[in-house]
């Protein structure tokens, strides 16, 4: 039986795909959290904001690397049938179309996020913001994709996925209620009659 992947076994490929998938999911959770910190926190006199921003940007690019491996090994491995189209077009997979599709959605959105951010100054700000808000769709899509497809027989991976979900939701809850001095003052003034 010939295979596309030569001496590398299907098992290794499947293992690599799951590992890089989990790493990507952890990274995406971290990136999203860092983004929420940028929005809701103000420490203008320290160097922390620049560190947070640098991590937010660099980890995003780094995640692409892990995702490339994740997708590549999933395609190469022949145990289940997933081709390149299925990786980017939702529902195009023969194997588990909905769940693989969630991964495709997450990947598409991540690509849109990164490209729109690299080209931010050529886009209208509202367009950039809208695309950036889809990160709140991308992350749960990635989580669900990972939880259902890659962790069923690995309690450790399952725990990591759940931990990411819990952490992300907690920080999201904080982000929804956290306020900055700037935001509070604007809201206070807006309460007056301006129309």
């Amino acid at each position: 039986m010939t295979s596309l992947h030569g001496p590398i076994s299907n098992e290794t490929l499947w293992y690599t795909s799951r590992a890089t998938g989990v790493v990507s999911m952890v990274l995406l959770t971290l990136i999203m959290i860092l983004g929420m910190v940028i929005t809701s926190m103000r420490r203008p006199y320290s160097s922390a904001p620049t560190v947070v921003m640098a991590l937010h940007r660099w980890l995003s690019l780094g995640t692409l690397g892990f995702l490339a491996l994740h997708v590549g090994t999933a395609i190469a491995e022949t145990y289940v049938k997933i081709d390149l189209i299925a990786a980017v077009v939702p529902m195009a997979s023969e194997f588990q179309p909905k769940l693989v599709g969630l991964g495709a959605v997450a990947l598409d959105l991540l690509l849109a996020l990164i490209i729109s951010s690299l080209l931010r100054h050529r886009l209208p700000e509202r367009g950039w913001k809208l695309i950036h808000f889809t990160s709140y769709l991308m992350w749960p899509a990635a989580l669900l994709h990972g939880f259902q497809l890659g962790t069923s027989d690995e309690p450790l991976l399952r725990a990591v996925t759940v931990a990411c979900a819990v952490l992300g939701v907690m920080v999201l809850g904080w982000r929804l209620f956290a306020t900055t001095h700037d935001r509070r003052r604007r809201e206070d003034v807006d309460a007056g009659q301006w129309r």
Partner: protein
Amino acid sequence: MAGSPAQQRIKVDRIACTAHGFCAQVAADLFDLDDFGYPIVRHEHVGRHMSSAKRAVKLCPARALYLPSTE
């Protein structure tokens, strides 16, 4: 659209600015912060600080910095 460095100014969109403080970090030669975290522009004409200026414009999370056209 940036013009010649000698005449190029850097401007803060004061309505968009929400005191992230990135400008003072990445372009300390051009910006200080007041006691509420909002930028004080040290040199409105960027001159030899053009690369700092461009970096600050690019990285401001609120996109509150701009280099107005010199035409």
